[in-house]
């Protein structure tokens, strides 16, 4: 049997460092928001012949007065054009100009979000994250309502939620880092990924908690709570890793073969699910033991 609970302090140290780094990168760099959240236009223009230089395209669009325009060349003979636009007339003008200057170009996709919509999306996304965390906390507390000794049921909920907050903070931190250095933007798909991480990570945690619950009901009085938790962790270790493994396999398939449109989405899920597995093994149950020790001390 591996003594996982006994090594809690290393896990805590590792997690605290990562969480602090994540919060710091979020604080210093912030997330690079996509047009979903800022409003504006993202246009992918493909050229059947030679792809013109970014500077040239920029020069051609200059007099249209596009605010914060950014161009990016992609692998499939196309250019991504981003700019802040307040109304659709701007888009029409850009499309017209491009077709005039480059008759061999075509708009592969045009996404346009008005700032009124993006403001709403930002608000809804935040609400959704809080609703999901609250929903999961309530659910875990309810699912473990029959376990009240030696640690109360709401503490299972709290343990699960702290582990979850840890998972999504690290994912967000990772994307603040990627946004700063790689220019990866976050939009609505990122929020969907965060919520999925929330739903999935708690899955593993529940498996361990479930085993702890079962072992508590059957355990002899000799066995201490930390030992029961450690035994439960060991008994469920393989299935925790394997259930995450199959999900990670499918995510890797999406990441490598699923195309560019959903690559960042699958990357967010990969980071979140990876840390979710780690935290349900090393953090969530360890928190139960910490809560238990605090209880004993305060008595």
């Amino acid at each position, binding site marked *: 049997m591996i003594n996982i609970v006994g090594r809690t302090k290393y896990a805590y140290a590792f997690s605290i460092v990562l969480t602090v780094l994540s919060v710091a990168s979020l604080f210093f760099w912030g997330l690079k928001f996509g047009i979903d959240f800022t409003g504006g236009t993202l246009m992918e223009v493909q050229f059947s012949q030679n792809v013109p230089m970014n500077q040239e395209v920029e020069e051609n669009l200059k007099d249209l007065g596009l605010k914060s325009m950014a161009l990016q060349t992609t692998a499939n003979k196309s250019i991504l054009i981003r700019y802040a636009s307040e109304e659709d007339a701007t888009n029409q003008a850009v499309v017209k100009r491009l077709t005039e200057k480059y008759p061999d170009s075509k708009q592969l996709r045009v996404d346009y979000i008005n700032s009124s919509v993006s403001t709403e999306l930002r608000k809804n996304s935040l609400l959704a994250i809080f609703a999901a965390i609250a929903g999961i906390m309530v659910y875990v507390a309810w699912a473990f309502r029959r376990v009240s000794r030696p640690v109360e049921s709401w503490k299972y909920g709290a343990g699960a939620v702290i582990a979850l907050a840890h998972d999504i903070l690290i994912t967000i931190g990772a994307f603040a880092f990627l946004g700063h250095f790689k220019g990866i933007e976050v939009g609505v798909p990122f929020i*969907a990924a965060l919520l999925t991480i929330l739903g999935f990570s708690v899955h593993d945690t529940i498996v361990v908690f479930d085993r702890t619950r079962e072992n508590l009901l059957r355990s002899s009085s000799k066995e201490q709570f930390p030992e029961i938790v450690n035994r439960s962790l060991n008994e469920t270790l393989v299935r925790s890793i394997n259930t995450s493994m199959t999900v990670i396999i499918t995510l890797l398939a999406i990441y490598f073969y699923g195309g560019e449109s959903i690559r960042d989405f699958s990357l967010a899920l990969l980071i979140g699910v990876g840390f979710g597995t780690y935290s349900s093994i090393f953090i969530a149950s360890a928190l139960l033991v910490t809560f238990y020790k605090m209880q004993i001390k305060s008595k």
Partner: protein
Amino acid sequence: MIVRKKLLIRFVLIIILAIAVGLISYPKAVSKIPPVYNALNKLKVNLGLDLQGGIHLEYKADLSQVDSAKADTAMQSVQDVIERRVNAFGVAEPVIYTTRSGTDRKLVVELAGVKDINEAKNLIKETPFLEFKKEGEPDKSKEIPQELLDQLNVQIKASAEAELKKVLAGADFAEEAKAKSEDPGSKDNGGDLDWAKKGMFVPEFDKVLFDPNLKDGEIYPQLVETDFGWHIIKKIEQRGSRDNVEVHGAHILFAKKSNADATGGQPTFVSTGLTGKNLKSAIVDFKSQGLSEPQVALKFDAEGTALFAQITKESVGKRVAIYLDGEIISAPRVNEEIVNGEAVVSGNFTIEEANNLVKRLNEGALPVPISLVSQQSVESSLGQISLEKSLKAGLIGMGLVMIFMILYYRFLGVIASIALLIYAGLMISIFKLSAFTPWSITLTLPGIAGFVLSIGMAVDANILIFERTKEEIRKGRSILSAIDEGFKRAWTSIRDGNASSIITALILIEMGTGFVKGFAVTLVLGVLVSVFTAVNVSKTLLKFLVGDWIQDKLWLIGVKKTSVDNLDNNK
């Protein structure tokens, strides 16, 4: 043996289910039996715009002018109008609906497989927005003070006089007109006004030009002041006599500054609340007998009639402007109050223009203005690539998961893989068959991502069950009872774990945006269906196939014989 018989029935049912979903998902398997193949091949997965190409447009309706009680009706009629418009365009299966978020009302238009995105957008935008406006107070704020104007005009007059001296002294009139004249109509022709009859110009101008004392080729030696400004007039030639006198003249204009310039020469018009929503019908009419001068005759509904009567009553002697899509098309002067709810728009139309306008107005003038707030358009070739790539990712993901399961759980893994195949078939069948229910599912790219992800999650229940089963075997249970125990004991974990996924997915659906919704719907569906396949299907398969024969081949389910013995010895 009743148990065994029940198990057999369930096993057979599962085989039938497997065959059915297999055929629905992959009709090519029976391509040699044409009737069956044709019937099955008609079932198609409803692909989203991001996979087949198309355009998703969201318009926000400006309901500020509409009574909040009537908002629903107004939105309904906006929807009806756009529907008629899009149907006339001939797009296959357009999806048009209204949504609300907070106080905002939106209209969503989804057009699949549209090749020319801009054409489609214009088609929707083209919908006329008809509005009647009355003359408002002139906007004083932009006016230039009179003293300043006077000063300016003194300067202008001075330069006009200087110019007059110059041309009288012999400077080329045409060249000077080209350079100095401020009459845009004649300037480029060297001030040439062509042949004209008496009465075609303002009186002051006429008087000089038709002055019999002014000879051909002569320049009038004084400046002529009109409302337009100061003119230098030259008579080029004259022909005819008495009533038929025609003069070919030229002029150089120095335009007077006035406040008409500042306000664009147009009086300001203000909204009256009378718009296309009050329109009952529109027909083409002709001003005079025969087919000349077509005009558009409008008839208002009861509310419109009352409003129009009030507006015309207030505007007697003033003008009422008719705006179409924000542009003024005619501004007739009102002679008397109009109570019969009829109006005529005469805007120098050709017959074709009048016919078009009437058609558009009758198709429905938009009751409220709408503006585009969100657009997602995908070119069909890009959609095709996304579809191929994501399906490839799905197949690779599923293959790898099956390999992993079989390597790790061996015989049990084979069972899980079969259950997984049935799961995938069942999901595709649900996608295809949902088209016949009110809950038609549209598969989008994020939807496929959700589906692929759910493949990884679907086997999780199996992993939990198998691990538990192995544990029970190591404790010394017989395989059959260990399987039973495994299913029974793993159930609470499976239920709790999946419930949390469902909670978050439901919140995502509630968020409601396109990307998120497609993903979350397939995820919820996937979780529910996978619980069925991973628990019920694999349990039936296992119990039917596993017998005492496996007791001494424990390696088939990945349990080392020694570990069992050791445990026994420890006891």
